[in-house]
């Protein structure tokens, strides 16, 4: 059974701290790994990592994919209160068609 596990489940930090969120997976026919940020509404897309793009960076956020060890990390440097959200990891798999398996998310709270 395909599985995506995120850790930690929740995290509280102070502004300016650096955080690392983890996503490990066990799936067949891996195609992509996506990170989303979810505040009190729909998930918004952050990054997609594939075999041809295993490292992405955007401002204070960066992510890497380790296809050998089957995990990804999302780093946020110099955290701000606006980074408070649930961060979701989803793995795209092909099983006759393309589907996404979501982890349960990491809830990040950044204190001022």
């Amino acid at each position, binding site marked *: 059974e395909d599985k995506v596990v995120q850790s930690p489940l929740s995290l509280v930090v102070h502004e300016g701290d650096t955080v690392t969120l983890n996503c490990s997976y066990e799936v067949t026919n891996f195609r992509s790994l996506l990170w989303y940020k979810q505040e009190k509404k*729909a998930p918004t897309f952050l990054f997609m990592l594939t075999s041809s793009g295993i490292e992405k960076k955007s401002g204070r956020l960066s992510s890497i994919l380790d296809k050998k060890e089957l995990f990804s990390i999302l780093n946020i440097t110099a955290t701000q209160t606006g980074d408070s959200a649930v961060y979701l990891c989803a793995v795209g798999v092909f099983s006759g068609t393309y589907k996404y398996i979501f982890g349960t998310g990491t809830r990040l709270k950044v204190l001022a």
Partner: protein
Amino acid sequence: NAGVTQTPKFRILKIGQSMTLQCTQDMNHNYMYWYRQDPGMGLKLIYYSVGAGITDKGEVPNGYNVSRSTTEDFPLRLELAAPSQTSVYFCASRKGLGGTDTQYFGPGTRLTVL
């Protein structure tokens, strides 16, 4: 482009009632998905569609039905609502480029079954 739109935003149902959650996308995407998200949990796939006239079950299809008569619309039907269907429902779509494109989500429908 409006992207992915969902109606209604909120709904309260009584046990045994039925309703249809509407989802429309104007991006000419082939793939459409329905997810539910229970409190503190990730998203679970209910049904998906790879194109007009083609639908298939996801992880948690029981108690739901879908149809895809057009590329734009992918309604989700709840028959005989149960308290276990209290959740937030998200519709999503993607173009379908070999698994290397991202999903776009609608704003969600918060459903409570009492």
